[in-house]
């Protein structure tokens, strides 16, 4: 992966979209030693600067994916901290949070420190990795993990993702305990008995295909319970990869009551429906599953009206052989870092569901706020933490060119409009060699 130092770089004629500063204008950015030295339209004369023409491109505060499975330690044949960071940078992300369903699980501070150390060495440290640790020891849902120690080591939130926190008592105590140091509990909302053996959304498609279904209600009942517990404890609660219309409704209600409840959706849940499973392509198998057209419509409405806070990818790498099996035997999950901007631009911005400014909130401002990470601004004197993308570039997804170690995506061959061009962070810059614009 070809990275350079951002020692003296001018991004010329770039459109800055910085919602926190209320800025949306075309100008030039002069970056010196990793910091934004100047912003203005007459910078081209700066001595010794590498000038990059960015006409038509957007520079936004660095995108942050708060739901990534880096797979290390334990599943390095799927992904590593290094390849995951490469994939993130290639997708335009300058930061990610990684999930604790590793082996061993991230339920001990040593694992948090190990992941952070590896991330500092990957891609020149371009991608900030903020681990999310387990709620319970071994993610077994029985005893609390050492949350305070994990937080002190750098964990920014807690989840048993991969599995739900199923026990209401554990969830209640986790919300209470984590609120002492102001960290959210993130839930993979799935009622396990209701989804036993399920591999896709329960509905007309599963009926026709004869595949065991996972009803949307199995997601909703857990979220409804957790909202009650969040209200009771005052704890901060975040729903991972929300996929149903019922859940959108529940979150909307919780927000109207002023509760500390937020949620994220993945691009695949607003782009695809369970109709895609008809091919029996195992790259349409993920958890939560692709839902009905009604659910997708409700998610689009939630993205539009602000009910949904975050777009996160649930980047879940699996090796080629692991996916080349019967649909029912295949593991859940698809990768998403390198297609997130393309899918969001194509399905949301170009279709006028949301504006580019709102897209920047969903992919940068809000995830950082939920995780209590510092605000990123594109202003003079700030550290340069930027995502560069071209909103109008047409491209065809070619998984063989991904930087991720895995290729499991249902979007191979898809034609998208909008493409990541580069990422700048911690004094390092990466320009994507595949983008015509770079």
């Amino acid at each position, binding site marked *: 992966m070809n990275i350079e130092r951002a020692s003296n770089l001018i991004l010329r004629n770039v459109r800055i979209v910085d919602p926190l500063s209320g800025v949306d204008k075309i100008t030039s950015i002069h970056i010196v030693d990793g910091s934004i030295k100047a912003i203005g339209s007459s910078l081209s004369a700066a001595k010794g600067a590498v000038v990059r023409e960015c006409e038509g491109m957007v520079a936004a505060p660095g995108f942050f994916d708060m739901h990534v499975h880096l797979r290390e330690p334990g599943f390095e044949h799927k992904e590593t901290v290094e390849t995951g960071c490469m994939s993130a940078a290639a997708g335009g992300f300058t930061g990610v949070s990684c999930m604790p369903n590793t082996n061993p699980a991230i339920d001990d501070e040593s694992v948090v420190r190990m992941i952070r150390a590896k991330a500092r060495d990957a891609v020149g440290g371009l991608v900030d990795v903020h681990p999310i640790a387990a709620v319970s020891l071994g993610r077994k849902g029985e005893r609390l993990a050492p949350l305070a120690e994990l937080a002190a080591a750098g964990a920014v939130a807690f989840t048993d993702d991969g599995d739900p926190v199923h026990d209401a008592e554990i969830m209640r105590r986790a919300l209470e305990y984590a609120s002492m140091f102001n960290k959210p509990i993130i839930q993979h909302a799935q009622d396990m008995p209701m989804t036993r053996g399920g591999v896709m959304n*329960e*509905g*007309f498609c*599963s*009926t*026709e*295909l*004869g*595949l*065991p*279904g996972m*009803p949307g209600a199995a997601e909703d009942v857990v979220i409804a319970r957790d909202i009650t517990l969040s209200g009771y404890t005052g704890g901060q609660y975040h729903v991972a990869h929300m996929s149903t219309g019922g859940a959108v409704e529940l979150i909307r209600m919780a927000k109207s009551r002023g509760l500390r409840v937020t949620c994220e959706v993945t691009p695949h849940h607003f782009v695809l429906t369970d109709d895609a499973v008809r091919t*029996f392509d195992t790259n349409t198998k993920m958890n939560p599953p692709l839902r009905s057209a009604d659910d997708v419509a409700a998610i689009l409405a939630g993205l539009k009206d602000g009910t949904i806070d975050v777009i996160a990818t649930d980047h879940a790498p699996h090796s080629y*052989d692991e996916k*080349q*099996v*019967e*649909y*029912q*035997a295949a593991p859940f999950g698809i990768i998403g870092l390198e297609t997130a901007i393309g899918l969001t631009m194509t399905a949301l911005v170009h279709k006028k569901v949301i504006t580019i400014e709102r897209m920047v909130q969903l992919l940068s401002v809000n995830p950082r706020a939920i995780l209590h990470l510092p605000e990123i601004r594109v202003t003079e004197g700030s550290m340069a933490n930027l995502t560069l993308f071209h909103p109008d570039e047409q491209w065809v997804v070619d998984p063989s060119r991904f930087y991720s170690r895995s290729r499991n995506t249902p979007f191979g061959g898809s034609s998208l409009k909008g493409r990541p061009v580069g990422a700048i962070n911690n004094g390092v810059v990466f320009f994507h060699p595949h983008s015509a614009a770079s």
Partner: protein
Amino acid sequence: MKLKSRHLLGLRGMPPEDIRLILDTAGSFREVLDRPIKKVPPLQGKTIANMFFENSTRTRLSFELAERRLSADVLGFQSGGSSVSKGESLKDTARNIEAMKVDMVVMRHWASGAPHYLSGVIEAAVINAGDGAHEHPTQALLDLFTIQEKFKKVEGLHICLVGDILHSRVARSNIYGLKSLGAKVSVCGPATMIPRGLEQLGVDVYHHLDDVIPSVDVLNVLRIQLERDAGRFFPSLREYHQTYGVTLRRLSRAERPVTIMHPGPINRDVELSADVADGEHSVILRQVLNGVAVRMAVLYLLATGN
């Protein structure tokens, strides 16, 4: 005459003329089965692999007999139960089949979609002998053949599928085939065993047998999986039999005789009382005989059509 598809994966979307071609061809083979010498030569030199990834004595024997009656060379593979296997990937299985240079593969699999996957990666023609709860096209074709044999038509008849629709590949293939040939189709079973959105397939849903019996021509009674279902989908076998068991007393409410079908094997006195299973309106053994003729027709049409 040729079938439109190189494979037989399911009846969903199969044109009615293809279904009729298979039934007509089966009619000719049915006559062969009544002759003293039941072997004919059309598949001489063809090799057929029967790949059974789920235990099934009946369907396997029926296919094997059909293949041998057509003079094909037959090789078989059977692997045990219905648990999720972690060993050989489908891709490896496909490569091995390809290396053996077989002309056709008959596949039974516990996983929905497995034959569809196979048909996409190998040259040989694939016949689905039942995949998960998805489709079982040859069973539905032999059911259609048996109905046609008895009534001389399918169009306009009212056929009700009784029992566990949720887990039944037989039900799905029957619904597609029967609708395609113009029959009226109902299902009757406990609400827990009717899959979501089934009525979108154009079938009427009943929960009480007595409501549907007066208007049906045929009851196709499905098998209950005793171990798996009792206690989760219905309380007990006793209650199931009381609610959905087909008995002579129940059938006496019909105005005309009701033809009884069952894909086998029967749980006697659960789905069907013994006197109904063995009664004068039961065509269950005809189904077994017709199954061989229908499978001969499918094998013949796919082998000679490509």
